[in-house]
């Protein structure tokens, strides 16, 4: 049985045209139309979108919008590491139909702190937050929270802040010790654990057990027992 959704998903943010779909699925036109209709009705795919490469279909999660343009832009900027990339060069890389979302996507990425815009004369350069954190490991610390006057930020903000700080401190590696997080936030272990479990259930975080044999007392202290799993989670990754 042909999994048309899988074929369209595989094309990711590039999308896929009817001709290629027909070729990859080996379906007759009538059957193909039927299946497309069905997938659209289930909100699993979006399209067709008119582009320079013809009419393209996308899996719902990759459909052209500010978010998918943002994913593509962020990927390109992150890949550049500490090398400054001209905004105009990045814009050239973003092809139709994502290009019409380029400006909004950049604004959104800047607003959410994923990238920074740096101006030099008339040129604008983009730099990813991971590169900034690697260059300035102290950036985004709790001092910043204090300065902004938010004496008691909500738990989520506190955790994410501490998470990014710890992540930067380990060279941008995403899996951060729950024990270390615990020592940086102002809440009980139970509250943190319950928050992390909730984020994992919502698909916003991944909880990992560990292979490291000599866990530090801090790591052991943070160990989170995950329902249905034999080994406790020691680290967490936020997506």
């Amino acid at each position: 049985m042909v999994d048309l959704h899988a074929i369209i998903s595989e094309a990711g943010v590039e999308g896929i045209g009817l001709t290629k779909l027909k070729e990859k699925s080996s379906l007759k036109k009538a059957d193909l139309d039927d299946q497309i209709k069905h997938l659209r009705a289930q909100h699993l795919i979006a399209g067709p979108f008119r582009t320079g490469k013809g009419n393209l279909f996308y899996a719902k999660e990759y459909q052209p919008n500010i978010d998918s343009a943002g994913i593509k832009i962020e990927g390109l900027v992150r890949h550049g590491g500490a090398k400054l990339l001209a905004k105009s060069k990045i814009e050239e890389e973003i092809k139709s139909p994502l290009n019409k979302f380029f400006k909004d996507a950049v604004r959104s990425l800047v607003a959410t702190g994923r990238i920074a815009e740096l101006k030099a004369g008339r040129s604008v350069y983009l730099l990813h937050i991971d590169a900034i954190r690697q260059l300035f490991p102290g950036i985004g610390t709790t001092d910043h929270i204090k300065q902004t006057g938010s004496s008691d930020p909500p738990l989520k903000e506190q955790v994410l802040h501490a998470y990014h700080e710890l992540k930067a401190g380990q060279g941008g590696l995403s899996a951060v010790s729950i024990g270390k997080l615990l020592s940086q936030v102002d809440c009980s272990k139970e509250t943190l654990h319950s928050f992390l479990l909730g984020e994992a259930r919502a698909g916003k975080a991944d909880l990992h057990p560990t292979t490291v044999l000599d866990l530090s007392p801090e790591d052991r202290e943070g160990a989170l027992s995950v329902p249905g799993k034999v080994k406790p989670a020691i680290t967490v990754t936020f997506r």
Partner: protein
Amino acid sequence: MAETDLKNLAVNPFDDDVVKEPRDIPVSVLGLNDPPLQSVLQTFTKLENGRKQGDQIGAAKAQLVISPERGYGKSHLLGRLFETLDRRATRIYLRPFQDPQKCWHSILLQTVQELERTEGPGLETESNPTQIGAFANGVISGLTVLRIDDKSEPWFKWIRNVFKSRKDLHRLAAKLRAHIPNLNGRHEAWLRILYGYAFSPEDDWKRAIAVKWIRGEPLEPDEVEEIGLATADNDAKAEMTNAETNELSFHRLAGLCRLAGFYRPFLFCFDQTEFYATNPELIRMFGNCIERMFAELPNQLTVATANQGNWTGQLQPGIEQAHRDRFSTPIELESITDVQAKELIRNRLLSVGLNFGQIEEFYGTTWLTKLFEPGRMSVRNLLQHSAEHLRELQGKQRSPEKDSKVRIEDLFSTQVNVVKSKAALQSYSQDALMWFSQDLANGVNNVLVERAKTNKWFSTKWKDQSVYFAFEGGDSAQRWKVIANDAITLAEKEGAKKLIVFRTPDLKKVPKPGWKAIGPIIDKAVTVGLDIHSLDLAAVCEIHAARDLYSDALQGNVDAKPAEILTWLKTHFAQKIVDLCSVTSPSQPKQKKKVVEPEAKAPKHLSSKQKTEVLQFIELKRFVSANDVIQQLKLSVSVEILLKEIQGAPIKTFPGPDTVVIQWRNLPSP
């Protein structure tokens, strides 16, 4: 024949949860780990874009692939990289080196073994050449860019004519020198070596000589003559210090990379890097290798994998500060989503002959949803849950918690069967033999291992037993003469009782019948204790499996601590170590036996008629254990020989602790 269903499956398709060989990976899941793969591919593409024949493209930083934890698919990603790049790259998979002083030697030997593997799956044919065959042909044909004649003649005729005239060859070498100045002065030698390989039929002597030269072994005078090298180009000497061997190995590797500018880039993949953490000097040298590859080896991309915990806790802190910058920003692997999990499970169940209805039965109504309730997980975690779920559906009782020794015994037996199933894991490994005689033997029956610094060849010593080890996979008469003389000196001056050099079945037999001049020296060495110790395939599988299992424990791939595994292995190999220590009593004359051969147990090959019968039998049964094949067809070969003999057939193997189940693969691909 009973129809396959969930209850009567011959194998548990989810038990295969560790990738051992990047050229043999299970089907991938759509989308999973695509961003890290694309990231590495994007960097690789920079080596290809706008490249002209002969260009020397500087290396990018080593691509650091990090898994948040074990089981997120590091080795699988390397397999996908191999698969995706296919003939765009010369692909080299590197297991950890054991001796920090000879790291380049280990990397070179492994590179040559990888070069001798075919481009695609299956045996060597004209359309499926070995990587070294493709490399030699590719470079030689790429040299046409250096032609100055009218170019109307086909390139192969032109190159043949060049090699017929000494003057033309000098001229071509000079042009190559102008293009790549840094070939250590071996421009003409490289041309002759690659031409000798490319224009010789399979199994030709010239090919063997070419490979021997690339490996950095000294050539015999007749070999130099045959391939047409100048005497000075036979630069490997019988007597070389570790540093000299290491440096020559690096030069050979650099030569390969620089010449790759005329063909296609290399891809070097360092996997199982957790192993380096067993010795701070190994970590330091690993960092040093990455730095030198970045700085001095063009036309290649290096990839290194690690688990995050091992990387941040052990490897990175041990790598010199200046070398840390030679790794890219981490490229992180992803966890699996429920949709991808469904696809992975479906692929695995389809591959063992189940249909879609039976697969739905496996998912049930709530099992998968419940499994993903606490969030995403690693691929291995999913496979382990799926394996357990299948056993539950089959009504197989969860085995009571096994005693740690029994558990490790099962792990080891499975690992031995894994090595028996994959010929690539059986090739001579200097690193595995060193590990066996150093790390594994240390402390067993009072063996105290020390590095014998004064001696180049017999570099490992079991102190109280006066047993020495040298590691040499080559067959150069001059080098063996040096080894024999060293053995005599050690026996006479240092009181060495036994001097062991391991040989494995894939190596050429030494001493060779034609070694008339050095025969008496080897004879004398044997009488004083030289033991050219032939390991049979079963012994090789055990030693390689032992190192792999220990490496798995270091990576957290198995449910046992590295120290537990090592202790068990020491007990398991204790008798072998005692046997290696045993020497003929001084009252008895020492046997004048040149080679200690394993006892002849079983034939080493199947006849072509037997092979046909075996394959027909497997096709008929669809799933059958290797032991059953041997018993029912009344064959007198061992399991490892049987599996070696049916390589290249459309089969898949499922190694377990008791046997290896063989599946005939004529099933529709999922």
